[in-house]
């Protein structure tokens, strides 16, 4: 069985699993990292959104063989460490706005939000309506409004 090595939340891990198994299942079913959620397995609902080398990725659509030994995979569990804090400012804003309801989509929402802010910042601007239109994460509880407020609050804090 092929062996795959990558950096997960700051630690190098090696997993023996077939090449085509998607990263979401490697994390959830083999490594027991359950922050990224399954919502469709199609790259549509984005509940599994995590970061690969700092960029948002739907890991239900990434064969584990696509991940290289030096690639840094960050899930919601590893997000605070990326800023050296107990909570990432985006998570803190989520708490301040009391965003979650059932909470199932929120790890993916937060990971998407962080990446979206960094993407806009790299382009030299703050988030606008067009950016929000690009956030495709489903929240079936309908917390979208508070998500917007939380992102706007957090975007200058990291």
């Amino acid at each position, binding site marked *: 069985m092929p062996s795959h090595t990558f950096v997960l939340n700051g630690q190098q891990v090696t997993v023996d*699993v*077939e090449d*085509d*198994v998607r*990263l979401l*299942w490697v994390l*959830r*079913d*083999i490594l*027991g990292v*359950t*922050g990224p*959620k*399954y*919502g*469709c*397995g*199609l*790259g*549509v*609902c984005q*509940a599994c959104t995590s970061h690969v080398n700092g*960029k*948002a*990725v*739907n890991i239900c*659509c*990434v064969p584990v063989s*696509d991940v290289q030994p030096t690639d840094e995979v960050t*899930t*919601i*569990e590893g997000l605070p460490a990326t800023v050296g804090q107990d*909570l990432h400012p985006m*998570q803190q804003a*989520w*708490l301040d706005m*009391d*965003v979650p*309801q*059932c*909470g*199932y*989509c929120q*790890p993916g929402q937060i990971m998407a939000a962080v990446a979206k802010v960094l*993407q806009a910042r790299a382009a030299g601007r703050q988030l606008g*309506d067009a950016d*929000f*239109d690009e956030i*495709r*994460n*489903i*929240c*079936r*509880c*309908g*917390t*979208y*409004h*508070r998500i*917007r407020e939380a992102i706007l609050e957090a975007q200058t804090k990291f």
Partner: protein
Amino acid sequence: MSTASEQQSTDVSRRRFLGYVLAASTLTVAAQLGEGAAAPHAEAAVPGVPEPADLYDLNDMLTDATLATANLITITLNADGTASFALPRTEVGQGITTSTAMLIAEELDLPLDKVQVSLADARPELVFNQLTGGSNTTISTYTPVRVAAATAKQQLLEAAATELGVPLSALSALQGVITAPDGRSLSYAELAVKAASLTNLQVSVTLKPATAFSVIGTPQNRIDALDAVTGRKQFAMDVQVAGAMPAMICRPPTINGTVVSVQNRTAVQAMPGITDVAVVSTGVAVRGRTFGQCIDAVRALQVTWGPGSEDAATDATVLAELRAAENPIVTPPLPLLTEAVDARFTFHFASNSALESNCAVADVRSGSAEIWACVKAPITAQEEIAAQLGLPVSAVTVHVTQGGGSFGRKLFHDAALEAAEVSKAMGKPVRLMWHRTDDFRHGRTHPMSISRVRATYSLGQVLTLDQRHTSVATEFGHGLGEIITSSVAKLPVGGLTFSETIFSLTQQTPYNFGVTTQLLTEVDNGFHTGSMRNIYSPNVRCAQELIVDRLAAAMGQDPYHFRRNFLKDPRAVAVLDKVAQVGNWGRTMAPGTAQGIAIHPEYHGFVAVLVEIDCTPATVNRQIPDAVTGPRVTKAVCAVDVGLAVNPKGLEAQMMGGIMDGIAVTLTSSLHLNGGYFQEGSWDNYFYTRQWNTPPELDIIVMPPTTGTPGGAGELAVAGAMAAVACAYGRATGTMPTTFPINHDAPLAFTPLPTVPPIPQSPTDGLSRAY
């Protein structure tokens, strides 16, 4: 906001309640669930008007059904000074663990973060009293939970009085510390063991008057928010159970299709990671190391399928069936010059699929079974699983997990039943999960319905309003049925079926419209249906409110003032006035845009919603990939009066979510039936509200307490929002919408996924789409 005390009736606060102190090593107290929770209500129906739901609604029935159940809910005070409570209800995002913790914190004088609320396993001795539905949780547990907490505080005070040698009446309790007049104090942690009892005791307690509330009625953040934002919150598929490997089902191409034969079982069982393949009642089950490998196995299975139950059905055939079953409206002779408005509305199939798809963990052994699942009727689940496995109910343990949304879906336990069957067939524990595509196509739906409404008016008065709601049957086989069986004799609606009873108990006309009749007719067939957040109300009330707009226009009145003039209840007028004022009703709107306003009464509460909608081409034709944009609600203002909001912040969240649902069912989201199956198979096919449909302006106003007791909160905004959006759309376009969602008859905005294999493969281009 004014305090709850202004509204609280003193007789309730002075009432004494029975609490229990249980023999235990630390202080453990209890109260009867159901005791004293129900307000007095009318004994019998007045024929005709008012309608049944005005006198006695679904919530009264749910609350009354719990009164006969003499079983206890228990609060334990731990040696570290925290309090623990296992809530016999199901948290699916609606915030009841938080509101329950608030009730305990209030009555126990303990900081909110020292109260731990978990979800109780199925407790069959509670009989009817472990169903989460009908927005009933807070209504039915408000008093019992406080009685138990008050009992605990009384025992702590007695123990402190003994320890400190001062009279109990001289002590004060604050934030988990009891203090004597001389300044000496003892924490609850120090008293938890000392206050424990060696025997069971029955004690009498009083509850805090509303004037003394410092937690109830204050906005509080969710107690599980930190777990949610850190990924630590555990849902069913996150629970680690030894040996419980992923499992999925290969399902038939059409609804209720059956397995005739499997051609390649051995080959599939030999696929990488796969451990087992078994034919079960709903398809072919596979179990493997990862869900990814289960998806591969499901797709590789070659199955000969028997026909389904609805193979010839399409939207058009179901609609024709409904039209044929519709009861006529017979209006009595009316005065000369009476005029009428009359319209029929179609509401298409909709999905109550949550983001967490149907799932459950099952470990079935030879003489026992253990299940982990988010189920809102755990006792019914336990009974049905036991029956299916041939085990006594006592041999089946059902652990209730936190839910990733429900919207009616988790009233049923389809996945738990299936997981038990699969675990038994394979002789191994399984973690069974439905693929998203299955969740849309084979999961439960909110049934298609039509609603005809006819109203007559003359000389400035509305004389009659008749509504004939005809629907594909809604299944209630989740325990509500048992409650109705027990309660039906005392209902003012004797002789009706379960569904007709639920309809009668939930549907109200909030207006003085003369002789009013609302009747339900059901067409039963093989669809898997269930309630969707707010059961019948979004459709029934949307139809009514559109007719109200039409009546207002016909009678030359403004929609807001017309409603105001005819509303029965001052609480309804108050919420309507509030949204009209805050939402600046009547302001000049550009062509192609309009305001809409609507009201909805339910579950002892009232909601009013004002929206502004933009139907201009520039907005309607916005291009977003794989999306339906269409008309956009640009602003929503909602005022809600639930009598007493235990947690106004949680209530605001419920209203916001209800508005998102209302927007979806009005404008974008439905299931299309063709060839015996629903075409939708992904969230880019089923167009629930997304960021690009979200109103940029959203304002929720929680009204000050009115009745002093909490009403239902989880559902009522859906109907109010749906009606308001529909009315706004009609006013913006000049055409009253009669088909919902409004885009249902447009060409499909997606290419349907194949049905064989039944689920799609996951893409492999994730990294190339990184941002």
